[in-house]
Every structure is written in structure tokens, then in C-alpha cells.
């Protein structure tokens, strides 16, 4: 029987209990009734980034709480090792794109929901694409991808346009540990603000790897860090290529034998070089549920949302802590100063630098200037100073378009200052 696209009586009976009347602590902006239901079910467009361990849970939760226009991005294909927890996938799906299979599964299972997949990288999409969503939820396993989407959403905030501020809900898990957080770009602490809280990736001293291995991991690192470049030169190692992993495994196993170390296996080799942390299905379920509850609360204003960081530590009993992570003034993405500057189209770079130094409110010394694509003037190192010195006598208007941005760094600034230049 084909799945119906019609809602049936009492489909949302439980969710509607929350949306039909305000509680004592609901947001004052909450208007109970049909309008909020219509927004959630007809208008709200949500983007899910990642269709893996967290992503599968997130997609199912969103569809079942009544989000109906869901988009999902993932660049990976399904591996057999995913099937133990990524429950939208079956053995027949192995090798197919996660985003596409997940979208089809949800649409078959939950009538009336549209899931639009994109099989590719988040970096393939531009601001116009991200601008169409009301909310973004991330279930990623990469710091780099998180930094990218965070910076993109912060940059998109346009002071003239309220719609440009897209709440970002970020979930992450590592074994029994996890975190969920709500980021309101430019308003609250962003991903980059908390970068120094990350566990650093496991790295062993290179001399231990080279001379005194004691662990199977030391042998694997020896194969990937020292032997691969020695034998293959500039050829790049591809950790997704099984042949490359096999080569590393064979090298590591031979070395382990020489040093009488046990425990080098093919899957450990893959785990070490890809920095894979064991994934636990139930931790993913907890974190995904928390992220989706926040999405629901933010989309409907029906209850207070997370402010702004929830962490779960399941390694010693169950411990969780929620706190407000503070925005950093020296955050390279959301902190720092921004300044509109209006100068004559005749102003030279040298004159602009003097103007900056004279400005009382920013207290800048020896500024270095660049545009997103080129250097304007660097105070150091000597070679770059010499290379950019000819720009000093050029007009700023030759180097920077109207409304263009200049990034200024200086020892006297916490991080950087961004100037938006207009000409008179």
C-alpha cells in the first residue's frame, strides 16, 4: 500500500499537547495554536549536516516530531561497519551514498515528510543555499567541517536582515561522552570560541615511534608517519583506500613482530590512521535526542532552549553538566572588532594606516592589512614587507572594491579587526 501523504486524526496528539497551550515557563513570544503548528509543519525548513551515527537518529527524531521539510548533506557512502548503529541502512545499501539512502528511508517510513538529500561536501554549497533554512543541526565527526559551517553561518549574519541569523545546533559523541550545544551566530559563543576545549588528537612523540615502540599504535604510526613518505615520496596517503590501509597494516605488523608487540590488526590500523573513536549507538541516541528537542523548542518557542552547552560524561557512571559557554572577544570568527570606514577614493594605503593608528578608539600599532584574496601591507617578515611595500603609495580604491573587507591584525589587537570600506 502506498504511504499516505495525508495527516490522520491524532497523528500529532502528543506533540500538540505542547503546542496548544503555554506553560508557566514558556517564552513570552510563544503563541499557542494553529499558527505555530503550521510553521513547524508547513514552513520550517531544517538542514541536517551528516547522515551517520548521529544523523540517522536526528533525521528520524525530526520527522517524528513533525518537521516536514528536511534537507540532509553527507559526503560519505555506507560501509558495512556502519550497520550496527546507523539504522536507516541495510546490507543492500552498502556502497551507496548515506544522504540519499537515509532520505528515501525516512520518506518511506514517515508519510508526508520530504527529505531532500545532497551527496557531497558542505563546502560545495554557497551562502544562498544556507540562507534558505530556518535552522541547522550538525551531527559531524570532523573538527574541520564544524569550523567551516560555524564560520559560514557567523559570516552570513547581516545586520539589515533578521532572517540571516540561523541557529546552529551541534551534536558530537566520543564513546560514552557527548555534547550538544546551541549556537546563535554572533549572539552567543560560537564553535571557534571553544576550540581550545577540544581534546587534542592522540599523537605520540616521533622518536618513540622511530626507536622505542611499545604499543601496537606506535607501529601503525611508524608505518603511516615515517614509512609511507619514505617509500612513496609525495604520493598522498588516502585513508579511505583499502589498499593503502593494507600496505600500512603489513608494514606495521612486520615492525610489531620485530619488537614483539601484539595487537596490530587491520581494523586497528584503519582506526588509528583515520582517528576513529569507538561509536556507541546509545550515546548517539541521547545526544541526537537532545539536539532535536532544542530544534523543536527553537522552531516553536514552546519552551526554554539550551543555553548553551550540554555535556554528557558516561565513562564514570552518568554525569552531565549544562553551562553557558562564554563568547570570546578574541575569537577569530565571531569576536574581534568590526568597523565601517568611509574614506576618499584618493586615500592611499599609507594614509589609511596612519588613519588607523590615529584612531583613539581602537589603539592600534603597526597594523598589517589584507583582503580575503590578497595582502595589502604586511609589517613583517622582511620579504613580505618588501613585496607589499609598493602598495603603500597605491590608492586603497585600486585594491579594495566599495563595501570590500580589509582584515587588520596587530600585536595590540586581541585578534583582528575587520574594516568595511566605503568611498566618498
Amino acid at each position: 500500500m502506498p504511504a499516505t501523504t495525508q495527516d490522520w486524526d491524532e497523528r500529532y496528539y502528543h506533540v500538540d499537547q505542547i503546542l496548544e497551550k503555554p506553560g508557566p515557563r514558556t517564552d513570552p513570544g510563544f503563541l499557542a495554536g494553529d499558527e505555530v503548528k503550521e510553521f513547524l509543519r508547513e514552513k520550517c525548513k531544517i538542514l541536517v549536516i551528516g547522515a551517520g551515527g548521529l544523523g540517522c537518529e536526528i533525521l528520524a527524531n525530526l520527522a517524528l516530531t513533525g518537521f516536514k521539510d528536511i534537507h540532509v548533506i553527507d559526503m560519505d557512502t555506507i560501509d558495512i561497519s556502519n550497520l550496527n548503529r546507523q539504522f536507516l541502512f541495510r546490507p543492500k545499501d552498502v556502497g551507496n551514498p548515506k544522504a540519499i539512502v537515509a532520505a528515501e528511508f525516512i520518506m518511506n517510513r514517515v508519510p508526508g515528510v520530504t527529505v531532500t538529500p545532497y551527496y557531497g561536501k558542505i563546502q560545495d554549497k554557497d551562502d544562498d543555499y544556507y540562507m534558505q533554512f530556518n535552522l541547522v543541526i550538525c551531527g559531524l565527526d570532523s573538527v574541520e567541517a564544524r569550523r567551516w559551517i560555524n564560520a559560514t553561518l557567523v559570516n552570513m549574519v547581516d545586520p539589515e536582515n533578521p532572517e540571516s541569523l540561523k541557529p546552529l545546533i551541534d551534536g558530537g559523541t566520543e564513546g560514552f561522552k557527548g555534547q550538544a550545544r546551541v549556537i546563535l551566530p554572533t549572539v552567543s559563543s560560537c564553535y571557534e570560541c571553544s576550540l581550545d576545549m577540544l581534546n587534542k588528537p592522540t599523537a605520540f612523540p616521533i622518536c618513540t615511534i622511530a626507536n622505542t615502540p611499545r604499543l601496537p599504535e606506535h607501529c601503525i604510526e611508524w608505518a603511516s608517519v615515517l614509512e609511507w613518505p619514505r617509500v612513496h615520496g609525495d604520493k598522498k596517503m588516502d585513508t579511505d583506500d583499502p589498499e593503502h590501509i593494507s600496505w600500512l597494516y603489513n608494514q606495521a605488523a612486520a615492525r610489531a613482530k620485530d619488537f614483539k608487540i601484539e595487537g596490530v590488526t587491520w581494523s586497528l590500523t584503519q582506526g588509528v590512521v583515520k582517528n576513529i573513536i569507538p561509536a556507541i549507538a546509545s550515546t548517539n541516541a541521547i545526544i541526537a535526542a537532545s539536539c532535536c528537542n532544542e530544534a523543536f523548542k527553537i522552531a516553536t518557542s514552546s519552551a526554554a532552549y539550551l543555553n548553551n552547552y550540554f555535556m554528557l560524561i558516561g565513562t564514570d557512571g552518568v554525569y552531565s553538566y549544562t553551562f553557558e559557554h562564554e563568547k570570546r572577544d578574541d575569537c577569530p570568527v565571531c569576536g574581534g572588532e568590526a568597523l565601517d570606514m568611509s574614506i576618499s577614493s584618493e586615500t592611499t594605503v599609507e594614509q589609511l594606516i596612519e588613519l588607523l593608528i590615529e584612531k583613539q578608539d581602537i589603539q592600534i600599532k603597526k597594523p598589517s592589512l589584507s583582503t580575503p584574496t590578497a595582502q595589502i601591507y604586511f609589517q613583517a617578515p622582511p620579504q613580505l614587507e618588501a613585496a607589499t611595500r609598493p602598495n603603500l603609495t597605491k590608492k586603497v580604491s585600486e585594491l579594495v572594491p566599495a563595501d570590500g573587507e580589509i582584515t587588520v591584525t596587530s600585536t595590540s589587537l586581541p585578534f583582528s579587526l575587520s574594516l568595511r570600506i566605503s568611498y566618498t
Partner: protein
Amino acid sequence: MLKIWSMKKNEDAVAKKKPKTSAAQIRVQKDLTELDLPDTMKTHFPDPNDLLNFTLTITPDDGMYKGGSFVFSFAINTNYPHEPPKVKCTQTIYHPNVDLEGNVCLNILREDWKPVLNLNSVMVGLQYLFLEPNADDPLNKDAAQELIKNREHFLSNVKQSMRGYNIKGVQYQNVMG
């Protein structure tokens, strides 16, 4: 949908639109333009528009490696400063903490890297290796053992290797500037 915009208006300091320059790029600009290097260290950019790939030449004015000119390549990726820069010695040199492929054993390049460190700290750390070669963390085991066993002999090996001699079957590169 939650009215976030009204919260934004209450915050005086909310930033205006930020430039499209990536955080890694700004951080590299900051690190490079604030480098405070002694005369013994110089950076070189093969392509001055590419700030992420450059070399550092160290010419120690003291210690056993005085008179040599040692060139290291720096490659910074977009995940900087979460990840450290990748640094390699571009020459075949005789040094206990540098192997014949140019890998360098310096703790802050791997296990002790932190985002609060910067390019200046890495460069100062590299120079320190030439002033105080460390036999406890060897990458070139022969060199390290020689340094422990017979410092005089080690020193003579260093001098010879720097002139491009062959030591124990290994051809070293002439680094005398």
C-alpha cells in the same frame, strides 16, 4: 520561530558582518606579521601570495652547528591552529633529532602542540635543536649514540657532515652557506 533578533538588538557589542577570510588565514597573518626572529632565522616565501607554504632558514651563530645554513619547509593546513604546521628539514643533515628523510623530533610539532602556541614558538624550538641537540629523543640513532659516547667525535662528525662528507655510508649535504 524563536525571536533571536530581538536578543541581538540588546547586545551592544554584536559584531557586524565579518570578512570571508578564514580563521586559519587570519591567524597565519597574525603569526607571520608578529614574528620576532633573531638574525639567525629568515623566512622565505616561494610564492608571496601563498602564506601557508614557506621555508625557514636557520644559521646558528653559536654551538656545534655554527656556520651551517639549515632550511626547513613549513606547510600549514586550513585546520591551523587546531593542527600544528607540518615542518620538515629539506636537507640531509647529521643531527640526533632529525632523521635522514627530514623528519624532526620536536615535542611541540606533535604531542605537545596547542593552539595557543604559534609559528614563532615553533621556529624558536627548531633553533634550540641546533644549540642543544638532544640525545634522549633520537631520530638519527647513530648520531645520538655518538653524542653520548664521544662528544668530541660527534662534533667532528657534525663538522664533516656540514661540509658534505660521507659518514658511515651516508652522504650528507653541504650546508655551509
